C-alpha cells in the first residue's frame, strides 16, 4: 500500500511530462478554462474577492493570462474588464479583487473569467478559453418601510477623491432630497428603490467628518443620514535630512506636513517609518518630525534611508543616501576664553571636538558691538585655536563668538560659542572742544568756560573731571588750577583784567586728554563791531564773513539757543582757517525768535577776536503786542503820543516802523496821513512812521472838546501788530485854561477867608459863649445810672462847692431849704425838710433843692413854656445824689416826695427843673428882670432849681419877697 502511494505521484509526473513533451513536440494549442470557486464581498471596502482555479492544468508552472468581466445589474451591462497575468502552479488557488465605486449593497454585480496560456515555452495561444459561468455578487440588505438606507456608511476617503452615495428606499418612501452639510446634492434614480449620488472632489470639512442627510418628503418627513470621513491628503515629508554630531547617533529630521487624523477611530495620525537599506533595519519613528537612529556599525559609512509615512488611505516615501562623514554637524566650540592684551587688543582662544590630527575644521569668528557685527573672520583649526582682535575701542563692551564646521565636507555650521568682554579704559584721545563767554563785572572779568562732552570713542573711558589751568600772561608766575567734576560742561571764573591763557583737559581714570588752549586778552568781551542783519530760512542760517587776517587758526561762530531767556545755552561751531561761511542749523530754532550770532577769528596764539555780529530770524512774525502809549502836551488842539522802545530780543521780527491810527468824527487828516471814512461819519487817519527809532508822534490840528481815538502799532516785514482797542481821548475846551487860572486862585482865597472867619468865630465863641456841657453826655451819668458801685457816686462831703447860694431867704419857718454846693462849708447843717402845704390846706414847708444846672435847655426856655420844663423823674434821685448825700436825700424823698408820688399816680413828672434864667412865675418876665437870681459868685454853671411837680401852689402874697423862687401848682401846668 505504501509502495503504491509512493508510486502514484511518480506516475502522474511521468504522464504529465509525456503529455507536455508531446504538445511541445507537436505544438498543439491547448485551452484551460478557469473555474470560479468563490466570490465574496467586503462591504466596508466595497470590494469583490474572486477565487478560482485552473482545473485542467497539467504543468507544474504555467504562465497564464486571465480576463475577468464584471457586469452590473444584469450580465449584459459590463462595467469592468480586466486582464490578469500570473504564473499558475498546479492546483493553485488564484485570487483577485475588485473595488466597486458603487456600494455593493445597492446593486447586484455579476462576474466571470476566462484564461489563456501565455508562456514563452509554448506556442503562443491566440484564443481565450471559454468563459466561466456568471457568478452573482450581491449584498443583501432589508429596508424597512418608511426607512432610507444610505451607503456607504462612515466612509473614509481622501480629500479630492470621488465617491458614489447610494440610497435604498423602503416601502412608502419617495421624493427624497439630500444635502451635504448645507449644500444640496442630486443623484440619479437607478430603479424604483435605488438612487445614486456621485460626489466629485470631496472637500475636507472637519476631523469629525461631514454629515450627509436626506429628508423624505412623505408624511413622516424623517431625516436619515450618514457621515463621510474626509481625510486630508497625506503629504510627502519635506526636507528630510540626517546628520551626526558624535558618530554614535544619526539625527534624522523632516517636515511632516498636515496631520491626517480623523475622529471616531476612523484614522489616526499618519505614522513615519525609517528604513535603512544597507543594514536592513526598519524603525518606527518616535516623533512626527524626527528620529534618532543609533549607529551600530562603525564601519558603515554610507546610509540609504527611506522615510515612509502612511495612513489608512495612502503611503508616501522619500529617500536619502549619504556618506556619514559628509553629514557631520560639529558641536559648538568649548572652553572659549578672552584675554585683554591692552585697551585695543584682545585674544580669544577655543577648543573643538576633533577626530584626529588630519581632521580640519573651519571656524568662523565674529565680533559684535551693540548687536552689530563689526568683524568677521574664518580660520582653520585642528584641535584648538586662538584669534587676536585688534583695533578695539577702549572701555567698550564686545561679544566675540565662534562656530565651526568640517572643512573638508562642509555640511552645517555648529552652534555659536560666545563670550562677552569689555576692553579697559585708555586716556582720552581728543582735546576738548572749548569756548568761552566773557563779560565785565565790577571791574573784573567773569569768564564762563564751556566745553562739549567727548564722544565715547574720544573719551576712552568715563571722564572723571575737567582740569583748568589759568595762566596770567601779564604775571607769568601766577597760575591757578581748577578741577571741575564731570559731568559738568562748563564753569565760571572771575578774573582780574589781564591777559590769560587757559588750558583745559579732560581726565579719566587712566590719563589726561590733549589740552585745549584759549587766550583772553585785556579787551576780551569789549569788542565793538557792527551788527549785520541776516535772513534765516526754515532750516537755519547761512553765516558768512570777511576774514581780517590771513593767518587765522580758525573761526568760531557762537549763538544762544534761547535768546529770549536768561538761560542762553551758548552754542558754538569751530570752523577751519580757510572757511568764510557756514550753515548753522538747529532743531531748536523757532520762528519769531531773534538769534544773535558772533563770529570770532582765532589767531595762531589761540586768541579769539570778534569779527562780526549777525542777527536774524528763521522766520519773521508780525508783532505780538503794541507799545504802551502815553499822551503828553495835551492841549485843545494837539497832543503828543510817545511810547517806549522794545527790547530787541523780544521782537518777533525786525520792527520797520509804526502805524498811528487816529479816529474821530469830522476830522481832517494831515496831508501825510491816509484818510478813510468809516460808518457813522467817523474818519480814520493812518500815519506811517518809517523810522523804527522814532518813538513819538504829534497829533495836531485837533478841535477842542472833541472825541478822538488812537492806536499805535508797530509793523514788521510779516505785518503789523494786533488790532487792539483804540484809546479814547477828548480834547479840552479852549477857555478851560483861562478859567482855571482865574477860578483856582479865587477858590483858594474864598476858602482862606472862610477858614479865617470860622476860626475867628470859634475864638469869639470860646471867649464869650463857651459851650455848656450836656449832662446827658457826661460820663459820670452812666456811672450813676449803673448803680453798680454806689460808692462811686460823688459824696457831697467830697465835693468842694464853688458856689453857695441861698435862694430862699427864709422869713418865716414855713420853708426850709437844703443848700448844696458850698465847697468850703462841709458842715452845712442839713435840716429835715418841712412839711409841704397841701391842697387841703394843711400847712407844711415845701422842700427846695438847689443844684448845678446840667440840663439847661435853651430851646425849651425859648418855647415860652414859662420856664417850666416838664420831664420824667426817673432819674431824679440820682440827680439829687449829685448834690446831696444820698442817705439824706433819699430820706427826704422817702418821707415826703415819694409819698406825694403815691398820692398822684397819674402824674409821672414830680420834679421840674427851672433854670435860674427862666421866668420865675407865670411868664412874668418883668418880675424876672427886676429880681434876677444872683449867684453868690461868678460861676460857669447856672443854678437850677428842682420843684416837685405836683406840689400845690404856694399861697403867695405880693408881699412875699420871693425873688427867684418858682412855685408850681398842678393846675398851672
Amino acid at each position, binding site marked *: 500500500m505504501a509502495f503504491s502511494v509512493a508510486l502514484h505521484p511518480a506516475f502522474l509526473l511521468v504522464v504529465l511530462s509525456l503529455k507536455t513533451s508531446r504538445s511541445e513536440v507537436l505544438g498543439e494549442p491547448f485551452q484551460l478554462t478557469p473555474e470560479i470557486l468563490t466570490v465574496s464581498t467586503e462591504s466596508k471596502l466595497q470590494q469583490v474577492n474572486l477565487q478560482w482555479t485552473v482545473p485542467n492544468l497539467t504543468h507544474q508552472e504555467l504562465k497564464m493570462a486571465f480576463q475577468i468581466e464584471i457586469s452590473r445589474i444584469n450580465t449584459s451591462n459590463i462595467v469592468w474588464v480586466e486582464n490578469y497575468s500570473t504564473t499558475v502552479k498546479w492546483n493553485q488557488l488564484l485570487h483577485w479583487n475588485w473595488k466597486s465605486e458603487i456600494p455593493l449593497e445597492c446593486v447586484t454585480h455579476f462576474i466571470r473569467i476566462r484564461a489563456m496560456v501565455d508562456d514563452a515555452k509554448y506556442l503562443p495561444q491566440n484564443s481565450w478559453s471559454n468563459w466561466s459561468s456568471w457568478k452573482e455578487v450581491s449584498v443583501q440588505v432589508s429596508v424597512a418601510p418608511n426607512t432610507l438606507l444610505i451607503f456607504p456608511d462612515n466612509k473614509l476617503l481622501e480629500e479630492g477623491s470621488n465617491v458614489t452615495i447610494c440610497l435604498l428606499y423602503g416601502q412608502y418612501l419617495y421624493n427624497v432630497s439630500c444635502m451635504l452639510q448645507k449644500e444640496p446634492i442630486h443623484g440619479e434614480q437607478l430603479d424604483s428603490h435605488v438612487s445614486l449620488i456621485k460626489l466629485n472632489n470631496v472637500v475636507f470639512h472637519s476631523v469629525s467628518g461631514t*454629515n450627509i442627510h436626506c*429628508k423624505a418628503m412623505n408624511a413622516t418627513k424623517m431625516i436619515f443620514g450618514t457621515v463621510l470621513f474626509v481625510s486630508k491628503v497625506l503629504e510627502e515629508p519635506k526636507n528630510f535630512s540626517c546628520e551626526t554630531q558624535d558618530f554614535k547617533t544619526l539625527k534624522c529630521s523632516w517636515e511632516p506636513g498636515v496631520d491626517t487624523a480623523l475622529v471616531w477611530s476612523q484614522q489616526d495620525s499618519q505614522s513615519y517609518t525609517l528604513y535603512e537599506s544597507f543594514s536592513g533595519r526598519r524603525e518606527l519613528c518616535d516623533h512626527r518630525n524626527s528620529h534618532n537612529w543609533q549607529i551600530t556599525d562603525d564601519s558603515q559609512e554610507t546610509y540609504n534611508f527611506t522615510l515612509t509615512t502612511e495612513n489608512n488611505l495612502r503611503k508616501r516615501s522619500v529617500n536619502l543616501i549619504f556618506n556619514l562623514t559628509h553629514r557631520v554637524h560639529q558641536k559648538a566650540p568649548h572652553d572659549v576664553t578672552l584675554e585683554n592684551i591692552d585697551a585695543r587688543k584682545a585674544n580669544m582662544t577655543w577648543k573643538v571636538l576633533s577626530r584626529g590630527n588630519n581632521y580640519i575644521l573651519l571656524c568662523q569668528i565674529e565680533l559684535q558691538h551693540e548687536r552689530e557685527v563689526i568683524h568677521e573672520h574664518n580660520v582653520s583649526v585642528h584641535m584648538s585655536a586662538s584669534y587676536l582682535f585688534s583695533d578695539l575701542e577702549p572701555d567698550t563692551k564686545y561679544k566675540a563668538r565662534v562656530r565651526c564646521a568640517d572643512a573638508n565636507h562642509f555640511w552645517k555650521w555648529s552652534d555659536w560659542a560666545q563670550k562677552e568682554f569689555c576692553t579697559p579704559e585708555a586716556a582720552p584721545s581728543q582735546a576738548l572742544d572749548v569756548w568761552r563767554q566773557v563779560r565785565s563785572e565790577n571791574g573784573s572779568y567773569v569768564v564762563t568756560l564751556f566745553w562739549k562732552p567727548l564722544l565715547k570713542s574720544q573719551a576712552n573711558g568715563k571722564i572723571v573731571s575737567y582740569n583748568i589751568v589759568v595762566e596770567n600772561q601779564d604775571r607769568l608766575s601766577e597760575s591757578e588750577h581748577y578741577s571741575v567734576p564731570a559731568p559738568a560742561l562748563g564753569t565760571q571764573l572771575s578774573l582780574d583784567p589781564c591777559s590769560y591763557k587757559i588750558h583745559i583737559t579732560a581726565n579719566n581714570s587712566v590719563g589726561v586728554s590733549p589740552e585745549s588752549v584759549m587766550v583772553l586778552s585785556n579787551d576780551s568781551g569789549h569788542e565793538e563791531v557792527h551788527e549785520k542783519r541776516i535772513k534765516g530760512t526754515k532750516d537755519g542760517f547761512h553765516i558768512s564773513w570777511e576774514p581780517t587776517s590771513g593767518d587765522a587758526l580758525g573761526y568760531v561762530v557762537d549763538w544762544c539757543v534761547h535768546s529770549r531767556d536768561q538761560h542762553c545755552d551758548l552754542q558754538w561751531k569751530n570752523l577751519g582757517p580757510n572757511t568764510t561761511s557756514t550753515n548753522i542749523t538747529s532743531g531748536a530754532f523757532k520762528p519769531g525768535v531773534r538769534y544773535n550770532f558772533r563770529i570770532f577769528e582765532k589767531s595762531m596764539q589761540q586768541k579769539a577776536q570778534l569779527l562780526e555780529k549777525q542777527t536774524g530770524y528763521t522766520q519773521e512774525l508780525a508783532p505780538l503786542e503794541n507799545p504802551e502809549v502815553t499822551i503828553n502836551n495835551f492841549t485843545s488842539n494837539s497832543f503828543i503820543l510817545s511810547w517806549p522802545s522794545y527790547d530787541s530780543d523780544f521782537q518777533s521780527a525786525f520792527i520797520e516802523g509804526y502805524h498811528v491810527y487816529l479816529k474821530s468824527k469830522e476830522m481832517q487828516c494831515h496831508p501825510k496821513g491816509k484818510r478813510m471814512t468809516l460808518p457813522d461819519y467817523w474818519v480814520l487817519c493812518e500815519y506811517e512812521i518809517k523810522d523804527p527809532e522814532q518813538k513819538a508822534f504829534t497829533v495836531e490840528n485837533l478841535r477842542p472838546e472833541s472825541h478822538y481815538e488812537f492806536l499805535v502799532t508797530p509793523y514788521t516785514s510779516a505785518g503789523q501788530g494786533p488790532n487792539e482797542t483804540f484809546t479814547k481821548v477828548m480834547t479840552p475846551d479852549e477857555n478851560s485854561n483861562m478859567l482855571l487860572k482865574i477860578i483856582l486862585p479865587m477858590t483858594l482865597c474864598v476858602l482862606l477867608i472862610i477858614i479865617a472867619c470860622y476860626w475867628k468865630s470859634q475864638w469869639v465863641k470860646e471867649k464869650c459863649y463857651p459851650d455848656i456841657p450836656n449832662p446827658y453826655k457826661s460820663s459820670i451819668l452812666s456811672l450813676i445810672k449803673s448803680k453798680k458801685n454806689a460808692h462811686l457816686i460823688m459824696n457831697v462831703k467830697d465835693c468842694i462847692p464853688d458856689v453857695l447860694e441861698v435862694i430862699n431867704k427864709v422869713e418865716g419857718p414855713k420853708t426850709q431849704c437844703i443848700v448844696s454846693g458850698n465847697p468850703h462849708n462841709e458842715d452845712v447843717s442839713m435840716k429835715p425838710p418841712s412839711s409841704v402845704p397841701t391842697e387841703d390846706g394843711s400847712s407844711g414847708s415845701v422842700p427846695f433843692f438847689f443844684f448845678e444846672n446840667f440840663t439847661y435847655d435853651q430851646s425849651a426856655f425859648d418855647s415860652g413854656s414859662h420856664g417850666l420844663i416838664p420831664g420824667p423823674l426817673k432819674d431824679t434821685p440820682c440827680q439829687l445824689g449829685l448834690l446831696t448825700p444820698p442817705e439824706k436825700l433819699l430820706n427826704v424823698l422817702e418821707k415826703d416826695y415819694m409819698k406825694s408820688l403815691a398820692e398822684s399816680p397819674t402824674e409821672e413828672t414830680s420834679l421840674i427843673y427851672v433854670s435860674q434864667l427862666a421866668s420865675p412865675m407865670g411868664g412874668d418876665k418883668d418880675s424876672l428882670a427886676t429880681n434876677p437870681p444872683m449867684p453868690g459868685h461868678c460861676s460857669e454853671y447856672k443854678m437850677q432849681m428842682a420843684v416837685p411837680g405836683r406840689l400845690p401852689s404856694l399861697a403867695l402874697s405880693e408881699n412875699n419877697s420871693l425873688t427867684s423862687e418858682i412855685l408850681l401848682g398842678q393846675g398851672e401846668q
Partner: protein
Amino acid sequence: MSQIKNQLAQLNGSANALFISYYTAQGEPFPNNVDKLCGPNMTDFPPFHANGTEKTKLVELYRMVAYLSASLGNVTRDQRTLNPDAVSLHGKLNATIDTMRGLLSNVLCRLCNKYHVGHVDVTYGPDTSSKDVFQKKKLGCQLLGTYKQVISVVAQAF
C-alpha cells in the same frame, strides 16, 4: 426632599443649554432640523406621572434618572470620540451626569427612609454601539431633547 427639589431645579436649569450645545456640536443638519432629528419621540423612555402620589413619583423619577444617567454616559463616551474638541459639551454632559448620580442617591434614600422601598427596577436604553455615526448623533440628540422636555415637568411636579 429639598435637596431633590434643588437638584431637579438645577437639572432643569441646565438642560436647555446642554441640548443646544449638543446639537450645535454635531454640525449640519442638526441645528436647522432640531424638531426632526432631536424630537422627543423615544418610545422606551420611562414614564412619569406628575399627578401621582409622592411615592409613585419618586419611584418613576428614580427609573427615569437611572435611564437618563446611563444613556448620557453613552452619549458622553461617543461625543468624546466624535467631537474631541467640543470641550464645553463634554463639561455640560459630565456635570449633568454627576448631578443625576447625586439625585439618584437622594431619591433612593427618600424612598427607603419614608416609604421603605429599598429597590426599584430600572430599564436602560437600547445598545447603540453598533449604530453608525449619524445614528448615534441622532439618538443622542433625541435623548437630550426628551430629557429637556421631561425634566421641566418633573421639576414642577415636586
